[in-house]
Structures are given as C-alpha cells and as structure tokens.
C-alpha cells in the first residue's frame, strides 16, 4: 500500500461516525470488542466489521495472543491523517505569503516604469 493509498483508506475509515466514536474511545485507552460494543446498539459482528476496517488501514491494532484481544489505537496513523490537513493549510498559507511579496515586487517595478512583462 502506498502512503497515499493508506491516507485514502484512513480518511475513508474515519468518514463513518461509529468508527470515529471507536477511535475516540480507544484514544482513552485499549479496550476489548465487548467494551467497544457496549455504547452502541450494535451486535458484536457489526462492531467487528468496523474494527476490521480500522485495522486494515493501520488505525488500530489487535493483540494476537491475549485472550480478549484488546484493540489499540495506532496514534501515528491518526496523526498522519490530521497532519495531512494541517500540512495542506500550511502550504497554502506560505504560498499566499510569497504571492503577496511577489505582487508587491511586481507593482513596485511597474510604478518605477521598468519592464512589467515578468
């Protein structure tokens, strides 16, 4: 899976409100499937389906050997999704800063009567 694919699948996974609620719960600490199912009017298989989606994109991991296989939030994966949005905002802010300066330079040159082709 490429980084872009992983990010796409992370966003897709988080587009669902139940899965967001699961992630919020796991942000407070590891939990078993039973504990995660408790606040929802949902069957265990229903919750398991959501967990598989979250697991596939790397947002959560499940212990292989513990009896109740508690779910664990992978903070790095979540941070990369949050980071994508912040990075995008930063790029446009800095681009606008540079464009602002460039427009000033152009207009100073123009008012000085020099070539404005550039």
């Amino acid at each position, binding site marked *: 899976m490429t980084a*872009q694919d992983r*990010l*796409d699948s992370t*966003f*897709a996974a*988080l*587009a*669902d*409100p139940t899965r*967001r609620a699961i*992630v*919020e719960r796991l*942000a*407070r600490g590891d939990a078993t499937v039973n504990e995660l199912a408790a606040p929802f009017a949902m069957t265990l298989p229903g919750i398991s389906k959501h967990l598989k989606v979250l697991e596939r994109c790397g947002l959560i991991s499940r212990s292989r050997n513990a009896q109740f296989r508690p779910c664990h939030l992978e*903070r790095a994966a*979540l*941070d990369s*999704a*949050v980071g994508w*949005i*912040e990075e*995008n*905002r*930063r*790029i*446009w*802010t*800095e*681009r*606008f*800063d*540079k*464009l*602002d*300066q*460039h*427009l*000033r*330079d*152009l*207009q100073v040159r123009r008012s000085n009567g020099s070539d404005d082709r*550039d």
Partner: protein
Amino acid sequence: MTDPTDELVYTRVFDAPRELVFRCLIEPEHLTHFWGPAGVSAPLETIKVDARPGGVFETVMVNDADGSQYPTRAVFIEVTEPERLVWTEPDSGVTTTSTLRDLGESRTEVRIHQVNVPDAFRSPEAQAGFLTSLDRFAAYLAKLG
C-alpha cells in the same frame, strides 16, 4: 455563508488588481516565485501550464535543504479569466477552485476551495462533518498528550 465541513477553504486579500493576480496563478514566470511553500522552490523549467479545460498544470517542488522533489500533477477543468480557475489532481481526486473577487481600489480576494480531500469525502457520512470531527480529534488527542 457556511461551507460544508468536508471541504477546505483558504482566503487571502492581496493589494493587487485582479487581472494581475490571475496571471500570477497561470503563468510559470510568476508561479515559480511563490508556488513552493517556505523552504521549497518550484523551478521555472519544471512548471507546465496549459490554461484551458483539459490542459495540464504540472510542477516539481524542490526542497531547498535536501533537494528532495515533490511533483504535482493536475488538469484544468475550468479557466475563466480573470475570476475562476478549477483544477483536479487525478492521483488524489482533490479538486481545487480558485475564485478571484475584485474588491475595488486594486484589491483582490483569492479564495481557494478544495473538495474531495480525498475521494472518501463524497460519502454522506463525510457530509455530516468529518473535518470538524477530525479537528476535535486533534484537540482532544493533544489534551490526552
């Protein structure tokens, strides 16, 4: 006007006439001055702009510190001089609309509006407020440390 929360919007007012700002957004000679964010260049020879529907908009951003390269590839959907530019990035599905508003007295507002960030945002659940939730996540997780 409120924007749906599955979209990203950045707005800035520039002290320059709209025609000039528009040219800056489509001419490589101008783009090279500002397309890369801080610490990143967009060399003139890497910028390809064919400003008409279906035309390419390609750049290579180069990190000044280590020389690493980030190519960007988009295709124009709409080019309406001097007020509107729409391009889409086939790799990510992100569609960016730039709207230029003439505020008079040689001032221009540029509004960058991005949708499908990424494709998954098209889902009805996403319309219900994905970004807002993600913002809340960020704040919430920061509190948890």
